[in-house]
């Protein structure tokens, strides 16, 4: 877990200047934003083998290299969102506020601690929460994955879990899961909850007479424990952190910015160049592996699985969300629960699926099911959020006009939640690919379960044959497909939906 903490800290520290630069300088923006965009859509788990290989080479085959690779992997899952969030927060700061800051002499570290950092806190916190949850996923995933014929294992809950599953020890698996659950809940109570309460004051929207309570904060705020944690510990610590960060960032900004930019401008192209050369060498130095022929079909199968996952998630979420939202009392509790459930990595559900597999469930369905455990929550969370925001008058009007049941769903509910539904699906789509890489090839209880798919191909190449050509080709094709689908399908869809179905206040 310390790995997660450290990685998050590093990600946040790097994300702030990145987003800030993007917001301040148009030149930087043109470089940074597209980079963020592309890397955001890449499934990370696939790169772990490559990363491990690289870091291990750098550090002479030691465990440290593997640890670093894990950190790097988790970092890449967190960084893009955080940086993007920082950028978006900064460009939406109202002009008058900036002018007031100028007017009253807020420069240097004061400007950081009173204007810039406060403006980015809400998005940082939200993204950190999500990243933390994701981080668990990748942490456990990275602990499981191995490179080449030899198996590297990293000490941690993930390896424990994996070994328990592989050994078929259900009792140990349950124990590990319980520990995971307890940690998640504990973190929400003691850290995320109080932080959310503290962060409320940074929301920029004018809400008039009542302070806005984000739902999870409200539920958690009912507990005395959370409240005393907030007032006594978290708030003063956070405020102090703001001040200190302000000074640090200002110092860095003045002294380090120039050199950092130069470094970035030199190092990245060099790395890319080197990578390109190695790739070229990889494919030309020996005859192409036979597996490469199967890749397009593998891709197709996986694609179908992810698509099915998205469809199922959407189809179930819609009526489910409607049902949840109608029970007003349960609404806030439900959202909190969903958020917590979403933090449980899919890998924790492996054992359950394995059990189902031993009962005769086909691996195809098994893989989809596993992927679903990650994907479903994203969609549901978004849809419930949107459903809760449907103004009461719209509901009442629909009722008055006799729109009930399926007709209500189709005419009122669906259009209202469509933008959020699409957002959720996009996230689920990305998450689904990650999950598939893990799920299409499973070792459980001395048995190997696998299906035809790109994930399986990748896994086999990674675990069994160590054939880098296959690894590189599968990854590349997957990335290409994802980017294509994003650009040609999801982005235009979102644009259209957002315009037509925006709920005017």
């Amino acid at each position: 877990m310390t790995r997660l903490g450290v990685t998050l800290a590093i990600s946040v520290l790097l994300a702030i200047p990145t987003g800030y630069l993007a917001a301040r300088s148009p030149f930087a923006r043109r470089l940074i934003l597209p980079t963020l965009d592309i890397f955001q859509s890449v499934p990370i788990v696939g790169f772990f083998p490559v990363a491990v290989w690289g870091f291990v080479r750098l550090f002479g085959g030691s465990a440290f290299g593997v640890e670093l690779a894990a950190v790097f992997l988790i970092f890449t899952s967190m960084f893009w969102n955080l940086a993007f969030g920082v950028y978006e927060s900064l460009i939406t700061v109202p002009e008058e506020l900036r002018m007031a800051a100028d007017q009253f002499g807020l420069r240097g570290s004061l400007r950081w601690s009173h204007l810039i950092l406060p403006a980015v806190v809400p998005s940082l916190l939200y993204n950190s929460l999500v990243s933390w949850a994701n981080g668990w996923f990748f942490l456990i995933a990275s602990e499981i994955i191995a490179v080449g014929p030899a198996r590297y294992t990293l000490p941690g809950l993930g390896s424990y879990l994996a070994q328990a599953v592989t050994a078929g020890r259900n009792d140990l698996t349950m124990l590990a899961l319980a520990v995971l659950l307890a940690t998640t809940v504990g973190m929400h109570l003691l850290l995320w909850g109080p932080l959310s309460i503290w962060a409320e004051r940074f929301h920029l929207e004018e809400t008039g007479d009542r302070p806005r309570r984000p739902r999870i904060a409200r539920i958690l705020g009912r507990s005395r424990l959370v409240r005393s944690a907030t007032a006594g510990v978290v708030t003063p610590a956070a405020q102090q952190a703001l001040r200190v960060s302000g000074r640090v960032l200002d110092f860095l900004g003045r002294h380090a910015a120039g050199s950092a930019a130069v470094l970035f401008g030199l190092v990245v192209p060099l790395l890319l160049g080197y990578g390109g050369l190695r790739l070229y060498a990889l494919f030309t130095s020996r005859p192409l592996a036979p597996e490469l022929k199967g890749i397009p079909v593998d891709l197709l199968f996986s694609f179908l699985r992810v698509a099915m996952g998205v469809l199922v998630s959407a189809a179930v979420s819609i009526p489910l969300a409607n049902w949840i939202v109608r029970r007003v009392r349960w609404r806030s509790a439900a959202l909190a629960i969903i958020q917590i459930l979403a933090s449980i990595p899919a890998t924790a559900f492996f054992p359950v699926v394995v059990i189902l597999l031993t009962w005769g469930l086909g691996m195809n369905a098994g893989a989809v099911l596993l992927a679903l455990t990650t994907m479903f929550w994203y969609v549901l969370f978004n849809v419930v959020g949107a459903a809760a925001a449907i103004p009461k008058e719209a509901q009442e009007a629909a009722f008055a006009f006799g729109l009930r049941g399926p007709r209500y769903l189709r005419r009122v509910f669906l259009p209202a939640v469509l933008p959020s539904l699409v957002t959720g699906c996009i996230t689920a789509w990305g998450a689904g690919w990650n999950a598939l890489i893990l799920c299409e090839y499973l070792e459980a209880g001395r048995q190997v379960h696998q299906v035809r798919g790109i994930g399986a191909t990748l896994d086999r190449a990674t675990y069994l044959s160590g054939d880098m050509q296959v690894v590189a080709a599968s990854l590349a094709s997957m990335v290409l497909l994802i980017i294509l689908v994003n650009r040609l399908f999801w982005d235009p869809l979102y644009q259209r939906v957002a315009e037509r179905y925006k709920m005017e206040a």
Partner: protein
Amino acid sequence: MTTVPAAIPAAADVPNVLVRLEGVEQFYGEKIRILGPLDLEVREGEFLSLVGPSGCGKSTILRIVTGVLRPSAGTVRVGGRPLKGVNTRAAMVFQSFALFPWLTVIDNVALGLEARGLSLRERLKRADKYIGLVGLSGYERAFPRELSRGMKQLVGLARALAVEPELLCMDEPFSALDVLTARTIRDLVLDLWASPEVMTKSILLVTHSIEEAVAMSDRVVVLKANPGRIADEVDLRGLPRPRRPDLPQVRETVDRMYALLA
């Protein structure tokens, strides 16, 4: 210069000029002239209003006076010397309040004092004083989102006064408020200006309301748009205070100014 025919204090000594704009021009991009060239003085001890239609650059002038915007051409003199950077002798009250939502009232009011190097105790003491002066005691620990708009503007006012500026600049400060609240705050501003507790010498108000300008000012500069430039200047020192809107003299002056603008 048009004057209101009434007794004007005779033989007034040449007043000190707090801020002077000389040949100031503002362009958008390279070609489009928004403002100027214009000359303007803000004199010590006066309440000066800038009125004009939208696009006449009155808010731009205010930004130039407070130093948050550097003019494309021309000089800005504060106390005789050319202004470099932000004008620390002026403070601004904004149209949509520009309060920091994550700071309590007292922290917002004390905002400008930290940059001026006051200690924490001094900052809080001063903030307390001005919060009391605008009538917001009791609300020190409230957050802006809990306040009505009138109260938010009072915080903005307290914040500006707390840095004890010699010139108070106000950018359409009442346009976002309801009629009653606006009236109350207008009266408050005039009371505070006259009070010995407040060291502000002059006030520069930008408004689109002629009634407001007539109700408050010693002098009104009327601006025209495209590009922004001074059309006329009206001396209202002869008009006795308080300037109730139903007084015939006031109504006459307002009518006359409307005619000017047409």
